């Protein structure tokens, strides 16, 4: 895994300083500040970049009720992976027809919970999973997930899930034998990909497979779900999503017009909409370097450093001469280090470290280790 260099911002406008200061005075520290207008903006940009694609927000990226409310307002769909995620949607009165259940491996209870909720689209990638759905065959529609490995994705999601292209025809055939309808294919090229090449290649393979299958299949395959993977902006160099998606649009243009295209974006939508505010609660000199201990770390909001291989852009509000420093989290474990070699000006206890692009796979994967207080989620 190549780790991208971290982006660090030194200094901040007076307005920003005052804003972070007053947020902490009001709500305490650490904080996750959610800017819903940013989420809306991201959604609209992706919609423009992928016209005629139905977007289903991947709840797993940040299953926060305030976030889901905004997605609901936008009239977007929801990509659900568990009964727990369905429960949150139930509270929001989101209708089942706006959801797809995308976890390739499910228990019977998961399936029944989803059906009861009204979620009737399921994803499978093997024959055992197919058989689990047989009792419900009259009610459901199935997407078959195909694996396309991606070396340059930060998170390769085709290692664990997805059948090979060679298996597709047989699974479709077996499904027909069991009276089950596979209505399309899906894939996930991996999260945080640098270019859309993999999407394009996968779209083309799926198109070819579907066209061929449709010559023989009893009921045609008509849905292609192109998954997620759309990048977060960790380098803070503006991402041109129109440009990123241009090859995808071109590839999609070659599909029959009556097919339905889905996508399951998580990261692109939510990453930039959340900013983390942490406070230095302790400092020391170790091995000739200043160590700063923060009130949030890799067991908390920075958990994506471990699980998601993410290096979030950080901001110190001060400027000044810098030296290599260490930023550590608050737990007693030594893995709880956010950065071992970061150029920082001299900082004091009480100073803030701001984490940007911290919406996706951050709070979603945090733990309760040490029973530290989790960062408060604040809707701006």
């Amino acid at each position, binding site marked *: 895994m190549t780790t991208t260099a971290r982006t660090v911002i030194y200094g901040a406008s007076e307005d920003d300083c005052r804003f972070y200061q007053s947020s902490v005075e009001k709500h305490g520290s650490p904080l996750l500040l959610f800017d819903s207008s940013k989420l809306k903006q991201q959604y609209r940009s992706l919609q423009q970049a992928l016209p005629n694609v139905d977007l289903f927000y991947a709840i797993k990226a940040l299953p926060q009720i305030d976030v889901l409310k905004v997605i609901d307002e936008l009239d977007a769909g929801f990509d659900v992976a568990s009964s727990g995620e369905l*429960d949150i949607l*139930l*509270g929001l*009165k989101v*209708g*089942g*027809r706006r959801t797809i259940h995308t976890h390739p491996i499910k228990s019977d209870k998961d399936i*029944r*919970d989803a*059906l*009861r*909720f*009204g*979620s*009737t*689209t399921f994803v499978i990638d093997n024959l055992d999973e197919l058989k689990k759905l047989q*009792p*419900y*065959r*009259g*009610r*459901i*529609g199935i997407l078959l997930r195909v694996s396309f490995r991606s070396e340059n994705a930060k998170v390769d999601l085709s290692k664990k899930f997805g059948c090979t292209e060679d298996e597709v025809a047989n699974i479709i055939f077996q499904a027909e034998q069991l009276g089950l*309808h596979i*209505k399309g294919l899906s894939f996930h090229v991996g999260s945080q990909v640098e270019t859309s090449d993999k999407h394009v290649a996968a779209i083309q393979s799926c198109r070819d497979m579907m066209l061929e299958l449709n010559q023989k299949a009893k009921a045609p395959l008509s849905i292609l779900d192109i998954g997620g993977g759309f990048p977060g902006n960790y380098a803070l160099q503006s991402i041109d999503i129109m440009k990123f998606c241009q090859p995808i649009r071109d590839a999609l243009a070659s599909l029959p017009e009556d097919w339905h295209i889905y996508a399951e974006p998580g990261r692109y939508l939510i990453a930039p909409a959340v900013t983390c505010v942490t406070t230095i609660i302790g400092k020391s000199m170790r091995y000739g370097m200043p160590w700063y201990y923060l009130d949030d770390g890799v067991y908390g909001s920075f958990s994506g450093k471990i699980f998601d291989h993410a290096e979030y852009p950080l901001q110190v509000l001060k400027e000044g001469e810098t030296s290599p420093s260490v930023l550590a989290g608050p737990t007693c474990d030594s893995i709880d280090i956010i950065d071992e070699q970061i150029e920082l000006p001299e900082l004091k206890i009480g100073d803030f470290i701001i984490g940007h692009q911290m919406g996706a796979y951050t709070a979603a994967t945090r733990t309760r280790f040490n029973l530290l207080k989790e960062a408060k989620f604040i809707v701006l």
Partner: protein
Amino acid sequence: MKYFKETLYDAICQEFRVDKMYFEQKTDHQHLMIFHNAMLGRVMTLDGIVQTTEADEFMYHEMLTHVPILAHGAVKKLLIIGGGDGGILREVLKHDAIDVTQVEIDKAVIDMAVEYLPKHSDSAYDNPRANIIIDDGMAFVKDCSEKFDVIIVDGTDPIGPGEVLFTEDFYAHCKNCLNEDGVIVTQNGVPFLQIEEVKNTHQRLGQHFTDATFYTVAVPTYYGGLMTLAWASNNVELRQVSLEILEQRFKEAKLNTRYYNPAIHLASFALPQYIVNQLD
């Protein structure tokens, strides 16, 4: 403007305009709504599925009630499992000689129906002949020492809280609470779209009753054509009662019905071949 979209099937769905929301409740794992629709009157939905509407409930409730009662001819004690909206109870109480026990798992459903769907129960819950018990239907029939002439199971979709009412265990316990000549009828879904339910129920009832079959009613808002009502008894003659006798009983009962009549009673046991094919 709000719309309700039914979520039973992936490839198709019916949609109702919500003209006025009377009641909406999201409890643990459950979503209940009662709203008004210009064409259907009040509509009750549970977990995205239409349960009943004021416009067409009479078809379902009359057929689930009067067919077993008039087929039997001498019902004194009748058990309703479920049926919280009160429609079945209302129909049963039209028969003067019958004492009814109704077992509903959730009192809130009855209260809510009385308040927001008052035409369904039509004050039936105030009738002294009705003995209302709040209990799990499965637990009730398991421990029950009484015997009934008719059991009417008015449950929900098999995926959800009503699941246990579709099990073989449940049917076995019901048999133990039935008199020798008794009959059990149950709501059994729309077979054109849910053929598995016909197969499963027939197989399960067949383990405990010598005569297990279905009769049908077409309820417009139970989308998909005919609905099957399961019928099981150890007395096959119950569904061979002649038209004359049914007509006589119908007259004596002085029933005021809108769907049920003796001719449709007899005809409803005639099954289309796609259903018959599932019964072997």
